[in-house]
């Protein structure tokens, strides 16, 4: 029941990405493992680590993370499991005094002595950023707080990851009840008006000031869902596809007046991915801990950026609100706004020119004056792709037609091919390529409509890119191929 009921054996950095002072350090402590069960503990921890590091966004941020396993033995195995909550009445003498039934009512509420856990973490890994205690029991359970707990029951690692969302990344709960939707509780109808400090819940329904507005598409309704009966949890299904960021009513323990970013999220219910806002928050916390690669210079840090293109010494970015920026040479602050039209869905650059395509198919060329200096080159709603190479600009339409711009706005377009099977075009140097739905790849040889030479006929090919004199293709199995012919 106390630290006299076991001992600290050792501490091992099982995920080692550098000095603890420079990384985000997670400490995992074990409780209820006897000396002869330490290998089981190590296996259990490794299994949890595998799950954590394959969970987005931790998978992409692994370089920022150290994980320290502290091997702790206990006199007895397991945890206290009182009869008051339906347990067998087991009393286990363990180092951190793990106990189910932490509130004397719910067996799954698994608590430990937090002060002891803090003390051990301070001593073993002074630079810790988060602490978890893994308890040697196959009974499903866990709890939150600064020291998160979870048992080795199947699926309980989800508890630990959810709790890290709270304890290490300051995320709020996104569920819309306290005891449960069916609990009969009557004090969960309307959230207080004050804005929550956490990144992933809000009371604000103003699109222009919404704190995750940079992740919301202009076509997404705000609010995205509203609860028609604030006396109960909202029963409606999501009206948008999974992963859509919007404003969904019902969050932060209230049926109405509080909103969450996506319909589902790990902070709303276990066994879901983190929503985009939560992922962004976690990444923001972890990013400073990533190893520095001195040969890379940070030029901008805006999560709204969705496309970059570069040509002739210039770098451009497009954001999900349609804004187009040109880099002027000063990292982070040196970006010149060239346009701010939310209809922009693609940019392309080559030959000293910058182009943009709108969601209505219109194609524009930048003429040198920010915001107003854009020349309309075509206004065909069928246009779905533009590519630029050298002094050439091409467009592909949803009917498969491929056109080259010849220099006269609106009318100066030369038809190069009219095959409805065309899926994508790519261009580099003086070459233009197309790939068909059946995987056939063709290169334009100079004669409109008939002047196309077939380079491949593999049905596994799904995409092509071109650069310099090289052409690459990607297959549906992920394989990448380079064309070696002439």
């Amino acid at each position, binding site marked *: 029941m106390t630290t006299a009921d076991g001992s600290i054996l050792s501490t091992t950095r099982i995920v080692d990405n550098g000095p603890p002072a420079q990384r985000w350090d997670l400490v995992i402590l074990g409780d209820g493992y006897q000396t002869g069960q330490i290998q089981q503990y190590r296996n259990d921890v490794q299994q949890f680590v595998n799950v954590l590091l394959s969970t987005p966004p931790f998978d992409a941020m692994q370089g920022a993370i150290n994980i320290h396993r502290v091997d702790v033995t206990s006199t007895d195995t397991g945890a206290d499991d009182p009869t008051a909550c339906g347990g067998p009445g087991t009393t286990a003498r363990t180092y951190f005094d793990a106990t189910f039934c932490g509130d004397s009512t719910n067996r799954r509420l698994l608590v430990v002595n937090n*002060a002891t856990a803090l003390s051990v973490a301070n001593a073993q890994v002074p630079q810790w950023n988060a602490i978890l205690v893994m308890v040697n029991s196959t009974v499903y359970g866990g709890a939150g707080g600064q020291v998160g707990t979870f048992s080795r029951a199947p699926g309980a690692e989800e508890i630990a990851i959810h709790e890290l969302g709270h304890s290490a990344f300051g995320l709020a709960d996104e569920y819309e009840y*306290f005891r449960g939707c069916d609990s009969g509780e009557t004090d969960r109808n309307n959230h207080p008006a004050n804005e929550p400090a956490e990144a992933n819940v809000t009371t604000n329904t103003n699109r222009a000031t919404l704190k995750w507005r940079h992740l919301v598409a202009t076509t997404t309704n705000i609010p995205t869902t509203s609860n028609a009966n604030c006396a109960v949890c909202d029963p409606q299904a999501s009206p948008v596809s999974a992963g859509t960021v919007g404003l969904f009513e019902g969050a932060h323990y209230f049926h109405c007046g509080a909103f969450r970013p996506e319909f589902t999220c790990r902070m709303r219910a276990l066994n879901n991915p983190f929503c985009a806002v939560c992922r962004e928050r976690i990444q923001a916390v972890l990013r400073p801990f990533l190893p520095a690669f001195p040969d890379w210079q940070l030029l901008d840090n*805006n999560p709204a950026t969705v496309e970059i293109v570069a040509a002739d010494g210039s770098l451009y970015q497009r954001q999900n609100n349609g804004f187009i920026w040109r880099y002027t040479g000063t990292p982070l602050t040196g970006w010149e*706004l060239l346009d701010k039209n939310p209809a922009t869905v693609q940019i392309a650059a080559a030959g000293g020119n910058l182009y943009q395509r709108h969601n209505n198919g219109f194609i524009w060329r930048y003429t040198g004056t920010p915001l107003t200096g854009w020349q309309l080159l075509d206004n065909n709603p069928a246009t779905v792709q533009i590519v630029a190479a050298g002094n050439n600009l091409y467009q592909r339409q949803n009917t498969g037609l491929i056109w080259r711009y010849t220099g006269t706005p609106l009318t100066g377009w030369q038809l190069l091919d009219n095959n409805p099977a065309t899926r994508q075009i790519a261009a580099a140097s003086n070459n233009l390529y197309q790939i068909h739905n059946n995987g056939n790849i063709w290169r334009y040889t100079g004669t409109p409509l008939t002047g196309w030479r077939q380079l491949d006929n593999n049905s596994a090919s799904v995409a092509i890119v071109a650069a310099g004199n090289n052409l690459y293709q990607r297959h549906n199995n992920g394989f990448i191929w380079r064309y070696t012919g002439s």
Partner: protein
Amino acid sequence: MSEQGRDIEPATSRAVRLTFAYEGNEVHLVSQQPLEMMLPPTDALSGYEGEQGFWVEVRSGQEETLYRSVVQDPFRQDSEVFSPDPEQTIARVPVEKPSGAFAVLVPDLDEADHVALMSSTEPGMALAATGRGPASELARFSLRLDGGSGVS
């Protein structure tokens, strides 16, 4: 700089882990542990007036906020209970925690004078029974070596 960009804080190598203990509605700073380590970036240093929740502010002697960290409310008198039942995997239950301890990590800044705990609830107050209003200063503690203690 893009309009929605955010600043990246310079890497800080000096930090202090502050360990607090509370009992009833009183909070005490138990220890200040100097550390050589990087910190997570600060949360927004402006524009959060009137917000609810819990956060820690490091302030200068002129009350300028130098670092702010939104964290889980350590005084909450409730806890999450989890279930493998996919119909409802999480719920909350009241839990009496009349005393406890927690730690926060803050940068060791030359201009830092004190740390303030900002909270919408007080120690011992059940979240379920309260409407959470704007956070207010619950306690402040000197970051000078001569220490200091705060009481709610």
